[in-house]
């Protein structure tokens, strides 16, 4: 680095510098004048250039939230920082600086063009979020590891790449390596990649490239599967039957029951009941969704219809207004004018009446529908809960039977143990329990209690969650559909009517002034 101005003091990005830059680069001529009078908000600025200013540290840019283009080239910046607020950036120029480590770009997900030409970067890293990158310039840096370039494979949209004047460019295989492994590229080091060299490169790195592609595919498949699984789980959760399609509940029952485990025998029936709950839950969930969807469709339809009538009324009124205003402009007789204006005012009132009537009608209609919907949903939910409870009761019964059998069995075994007729197969843990009747009975009953508790918990969980969901939804509907919507519409209508009245008043005053 040979800088002519090494001796110059590093500058700091401060209010003054920013203001100056914004004003210089902002609107010109008349617009500039107006802007100056009014002042420019930093948050409205879309593009900013801060080059050749000897800036050492990126700072104080948090106000420029709308910024899409930022130029910070030809400074002495050493670290990328302070850009986390500029989430709308599309274009970032940091060339001719002293950056050594790639960092601090995580928030800039919309970035498409990134220039880091002539810096001191030695590794490509920490750019995982820049998935929209189209153009990347990393020329004249300290990159020396060709392997490191594989990092760039994650940028599927990357078309233009500049890596010239890096240490690894001296290696013979540099170009072919890049072309082979970054197959989406169109331009490399200022040149179009032609078909011939592309084929040659791919041929050369056939084996390792295939391997890489294979691995990537595997990873992708895995990811997809994971996403699918997560989606399924989400759906099950929404149906309140998550983890019920296997022996999960049963496993849970025994997980926290150390002693039970020693006695465990897997009852198939239990799992069957669980899967019944699972299926039922999914079916019910579908039903509920269908119901909700239908409700919203109807509500939207009603709203749309109402809106259309309203808009028509307004349209008609606007046409009438145009005519009346034209007429008014031509009438010179004061009396006539007054009469006209009062007629017009009457019409405004009529419009208000009409629109308000429409709104009231809609409110009535919606109220009724929402009531219907609430009742139906309540029915659905309660039937769901009942059914779930019935299934879980089956589970409890099973557990009870199981417990009884266990007790019977254990007593028999205990007797056997007393008589020393026991098989050798029984584990050491179990032997410890088979001391006397009380111990074993206690162990069994405690295990039974734990099981029961688990089932009860599950039931409570399901019931409370579904009730909460229903309550939340209904509240939302009341809040949004009934109250908020109504308020908005009423205020809208009033606002418009006020505006219309003001307009005619102003006109009248102006006309009145003429006389």
């Amino acid at each position: 680095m040979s800088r002519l101005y090494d001796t110059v003091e590093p500058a700091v990005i401060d209010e003054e510098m920013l203001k100056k830059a914004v004003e210089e680069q902002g609107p010109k001529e008349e617009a500039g004048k107006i802007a100056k009078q009014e002042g420019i908000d930093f948050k409205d600025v879309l593009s900013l250039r801060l080059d050749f200013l000897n800036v050492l540290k990126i700072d104080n840019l948090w106000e420029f939230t709308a910024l899409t283009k930022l130029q910070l080239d030809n400074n002495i910046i050493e670290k990328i920082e302070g850009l986390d607020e500029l989430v709308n950036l599309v274009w970032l120029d940091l060339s001719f600086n002293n950056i050594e480590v790639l960092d601090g770009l995580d928030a800039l997900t919309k970035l498409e063009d990134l220039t880091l030409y002539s810096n001191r970067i030695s590794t490509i890293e920490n750019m995982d979020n820049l998935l929209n990158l189209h153009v990347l310039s990393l020329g004249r840096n300290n990159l020396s590891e060709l392997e490191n370039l594989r990092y760039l494979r994650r940028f599927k949209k990357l078309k233009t790449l500049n890596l010239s004047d890096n240490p690894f460019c001296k290696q013979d295989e540099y170009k072919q390596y890049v072309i082979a492994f970054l197959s989406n590229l169109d331009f490399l080091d200022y040149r179009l990649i032609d078909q011939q060299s592309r084929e040659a490169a791919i041929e050369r790195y056939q084996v390792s490239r295939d391997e890489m592609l294979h691995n990537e595919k595997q990873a992708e498949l895995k990811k997809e599967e994971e996403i699918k699984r997560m989606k399924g789980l989400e759906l099950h959760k929404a149906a309140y039957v998550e983890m019920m399609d296997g022996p999960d509940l049963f496993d849970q029952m025994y997980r926290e029951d150390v002693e039970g485990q020693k006695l465990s025998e897997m009852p198939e029936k239990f799992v069957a009941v669980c899967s019944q709950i699972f299926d039922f839950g999914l079916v019910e969930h579908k039903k509920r969704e269908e119901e909700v969807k239908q409700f919203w469709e109807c509500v939207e339809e009603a709203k749309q219809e109402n809106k259309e009538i309203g808009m028509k009324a307004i349209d008609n009124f606007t046409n009438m207004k145009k005519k009346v205003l034209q007429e008014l402009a031509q009438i010179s007789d004061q009396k006539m004018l007054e009469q006209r204006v009062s007629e017009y005012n009457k019409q405004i009132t009529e419009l208000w009446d009409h629109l308000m009537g429409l709104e009231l009608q809609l409110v009535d209609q919606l109220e009724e529908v929402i009531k219907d919907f609430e009742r139906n949903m309540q029915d659905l939910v309660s039937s769901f809960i009942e059914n779930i409870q019935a299934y879980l009761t089956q589970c409890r019964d099973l557990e009870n039977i199981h417990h009884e059998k266990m007790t019977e069995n254990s007593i028999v075994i205990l007797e056997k143990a007393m008589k020393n007729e026991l098989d050798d197969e029984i584990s050491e843990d179990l032997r410890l329990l088979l001391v006397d009747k009380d111990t074993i009975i206690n162990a069994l009953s405690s295990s039974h209690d734990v099981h029961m508790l688990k089932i009860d918990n599950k039931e409570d969980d399901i019931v409370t969650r579904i009730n909460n969901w229903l309550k939340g939804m209904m509240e939302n509907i009341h809040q949004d559909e009934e109250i908020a919507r109504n308020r908005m519409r009423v205020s809208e209508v009033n606002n418009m009517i006020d505006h219309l009245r003001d307009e005619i008043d102003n006109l009248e005053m102006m006309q009145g002034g003429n006389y």
Partner: protein
Amino acid sequence: MENEEENKPAENGEEPLKEENEEEAAQKEEGEGDEEEPANIEDLTEDALALKAELAKIVVHPPASEPAPMEEFDQSEFSPSYKDNLPKENLVLQYAENFRRQMVQLYRDRKPLFLNPINECGIEKFVCTTIRPTQLEYKELYNWEGAAEFVADYLNIEPLKPEYELPKRLISPTTVLKRQKGNCFEYSTLLCSLLIGAGYDAYVVSGYATKETCLADESRDICPLLKKKEEIKAEEKKKEIKKYNVKPPRDLRSKFELKQEAKRKAEKEAEEEKRRKEEEERIAELEKPPPDPYYGLRIHAWVLVLSGKREVPENFFIEPFTGLSHSVDSANYLGIESVWNNINYWVNMQDCSEGVKGLSYDLGDCTVWEYMFPNNDKPLLRIPEAEDDILDGLDDDEDNEENEVEKYLDMPPSWVDALKLSLRDFQMRCPQGKKTKLYKRAKLEKFAHYLMKDGLVSKLSVFENKELTDLIMTREYFAHRLDKLTQRVTDQRKGLVIENFEPGRPRCLKEHTYRSSAPGPENDRTMLFYHEARVDGLVKRVESPTEMTEEYVNRDDFLYYKHVEYGKRTKKFGPQESSPAKNSRPILKMVQKFHRNRNKAANEDIAELVFHMSEDKIQISYHTEDPRIASSTREYLKPANWDEKGAILTFSSDMHQTFQVDPTEPHKKQVELYQVLLMLLKAEEKCRSDVLDSEQEVRAILDDRVKEETASDLDISVYDTERNEKAKKHRRELERQQLEEKMRKQEMDIDYLAPFLAKIGNPEKLAKAQAFSLKEECLQDLKQRLIDKANLIQARFEKESQALEEKQLWYQKNQVSMGKEDEEQYLTYCKDAIFRIHILDQRLARHKEQAPHKYMQLEQKLRSDERLAEFF
């Protein structure tokens, strides 16, 4: 009066008119019989006399056998099958005669059947053999509609004479095609030949029809081109009843009043309906044809197509004169005598007193259709399979059966030559390529393609009255026009002209409607465009002297509507400006409407933009946000110096007014407002220039149209080898080249050694001596031939000169006694002879010159010939 009455029976001589003439005839008879009466008077009693007198009243006039002079044909152009009958044909004729006799015997009151008319060579031919199933190579003739239309177009009608008698002669379809005219039987036979050739189950029907049908009088029918296509009403989508549909607001109107209103309306409608019906009836009554004295006697022939083959779903008739189909219970046809195809002949045994309604066309049913030949291919009444089983079981019987089948007489092949139709004739369609048809209040003229210079193929004129004098509308159809014009409708009443174009024109014009009185620019017109092909997506442009409206689709800037209002042109004094664009109408107002752009917020997305040019005002209405019903508006006053070039535009807050639907939304900054204003000014400029461009385009289109209309060139396809001169030339050239190539090849292939090799027995390999002698021989031969040729030329030369000398001598001797003519003859002879001698002389010289070369050439060739090469 007398004369008329006299003539009629002579002409008709048939029963229906007998009674009318009775009295008159009786009077006549009495007058004539006066002398004879006394001779026999004693033998007769009073009664007998009375009877005689009574009988004398009845008189029949034998039909004056004075047939219309039949058209004579040049017999030489027909093939022998036309002029003679095969033994089998004779057999069939006898069979038919026998059949006829039996029919007459059994059903005395039946009209004669159409069985054995003579053909154009005067030979009796059985009608079935006159049908010649032929499939022509034109795809238009593959379907019955096309074939029937072709026959109707291609031929001219010769009505039957008299109209209640079967024709004596049935001309073969080949001759009919050549003459391009024929009667209904010839029409039907030709059409049937085509249809059977195309695979239809078609029959010629001989029977009776109404006068209009027989004379192809369509002046009471509505032109098929004018029949409105039944509009398929899109079924209104019923609103789905959903669970949570909102209830409609309560109807607060009085139910009773509504009912009364509906009642009144219904009454009124009924009255209207009644009136209309009466009117219709009145008109129908007026237009009814006058009663026909020969109703039910007029003989006609048409075509019956039975269902089954070629996916024909049900039986129908084809009227050969018009080419239209009729249902089998059409009121136009009054009765059927017989039907036939190329295989068999059936006589109708059903009652036709109520026309053809309800007749059965099950030709296999011998109770309703009497067949002539037993090899009925309609085994519809077959005894069930039981018989088959028996047949299978008894081989001997089967053999017998087969023999018996052999014994049946089957139809001999048609005597008619295969039908031929040249492409040119086919394309000419009508005789001379033109045909005019009259319909009810309409006239249709048809023209062959490429016949008219402007590409006109048909022209339909619609009139107000039946006399076809008050023109309402003409519709002209064009084909192959270079300017892609397909149809022009001229509405005489409103003075409108509608022109339709095919895609492919520059500027993509699709339809153009204008006033014929004002075809120039800036007048009322509507233009439709093929918007898919236009960059600007223009669909429609409507113009009037003061307004212009344009509609667009699928534009990137969401513009879909543009409306311009013009003011009056200010009168300019001074020199007239040359370009009309400079002196355009002043624009008062421009309106642009946009669709919603979902990428923008509704309050930023302009829905309507109005430039009030005259008031220097710009109004914007924005789109409506989804949950809202009102939309924001904005209004700018243009800065005073807006149209100065390069001036700095000032802006102040009173130049701008706005209404925002959402009062809580922050107001825009002045800078932004100013920028919007700049943008609007630019948009206005662009809009204005677009409008000027549109006007320019209209002018250009109109100019083009005028040019095209005067040129009216026809487009000839490159595949049309007949008409495309260039392609023809090219093909000829190719053919010529090919021929030359062939000749050259042939020349190359002549083996000069072959005869000599043959002489020594075509040895596999030549010995040296043989080779030498071969070469020598070959050369010798050539030499001989060259010398021979020279000798021949010389001989001829000498002969000619000798003849000339003799002639000269003869001339000198007789010079004195010769007339002028002889002298002239002599002079021409001399001239010719000298010319010939001269030519021979030249030829000899040339031969002498070329002979050594030829010799050398052959030697060279022999040297290099691979068979001899090894020795030299």
